[in-house]
């Protein structure tokens, strides 16, 4: 199963859905679309879930062969830490797919300094090829770079200070 997530923001990402429709892997896609949904998507050939709780969301990621998602930091982070091969496609401002181009920034950053198992893709024409390529890649077990520990410590210290604990 390919798990496709386009996040929970109130903007459409029709471009990705259309690209999925043309795939030879089409039947293997399971799409979730938690944000704004256009009526026309309901008659598309995918089973579209509009809202699922976090727990089942993580279960879908774990069960899937590869994940295809927008460049949303939440999903990228979860997938990287679950060592799941993931194709990330930025939502672009020029197609009104988001309110700014921060997804393009993430795309650029992760293209220049890749993190394990995350495969950035800009041009959706190459989706099929990319999937073929990614399917043949081994799952990398190298650690994901993260400065989360430091940030968390810092927040803990300041919280204790502010709350006078």
């Amino acid at each position: 199963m390919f798990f496709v997530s386009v996040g929970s923001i109130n903007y459409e990402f029709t471009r990705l859905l259309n690209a999925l429709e043309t795939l030879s892997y089409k039947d293997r896609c399971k799409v979730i679309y938690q944000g704004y949904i256009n009526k026309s998507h309901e008659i598309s050939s995918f089973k579209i879930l509009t809202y699922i709780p976090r727990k089942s969301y993580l279960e879908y990621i774990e069960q899937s062969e590869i994940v295809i998602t927008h460049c949303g930091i939440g999903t990228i982070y979860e997938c990287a830490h679950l060592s799941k091969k993931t194709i990330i496609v930025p939502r672009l401002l020029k197609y009104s797919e988001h309110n700014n181009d921060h997804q393009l920034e993430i795309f650029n950053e992760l293209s220049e300094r890749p993190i394990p198992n995350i495969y950035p893709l800009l041009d959706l024409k190459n989706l099929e090829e990319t999937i073929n390529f990614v399917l043949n890649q081994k799952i990398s077990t190298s650690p994901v770079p993260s400065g989360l520990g430091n940030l968390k410590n810092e927040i803990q210290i300041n919280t204790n200070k502010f709350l006078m604990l």
Partner: protein
Amino acid sequence: MNGRKKTIFYIASRGGHLTELLMIKPNLPKNKVKEFYITYDKDDSLENVIIINSFLLSQPIKIFTCFFKALYVTCKYKPDLIISTGAELAFPFIIISKIFYKTNVIYIECSAQVFTKSITGRFCYLFSDKFYVQWPSMLKVYGKKAEFKGGFLCSSFQ
């Protein structure tokens, strides 16, 4: 104030904002601190969730409703500290708490922002007591108050 439990608000819109907040939130003693999550969707894995109807910055009526709900919730629980990772949902709560209760605010700019300020970040920069960014490149974009201590996908200065 002695003897009263401290109150903390965790505020995050859905998606990455919430994921980040849950990962970096501090561990606090339950007998001393009451924790509330303010977000858009119900989540069974969290206790004390306050649900706000989602709004966009282009929807004035919804913003107005949200403001009133924020006013009610803030006055009811009188937060001592707000920790937020954005986005727009943080606006009303931070303004109201700051004005009425001089609440301390820790704001963490979402790691989705690599080179440009978010709208919420711009605003929260002015109202926060601690302001963190998650990429070193963001330090130049904001002023002196911004600090970089590490980010979700970024371990050190590169």
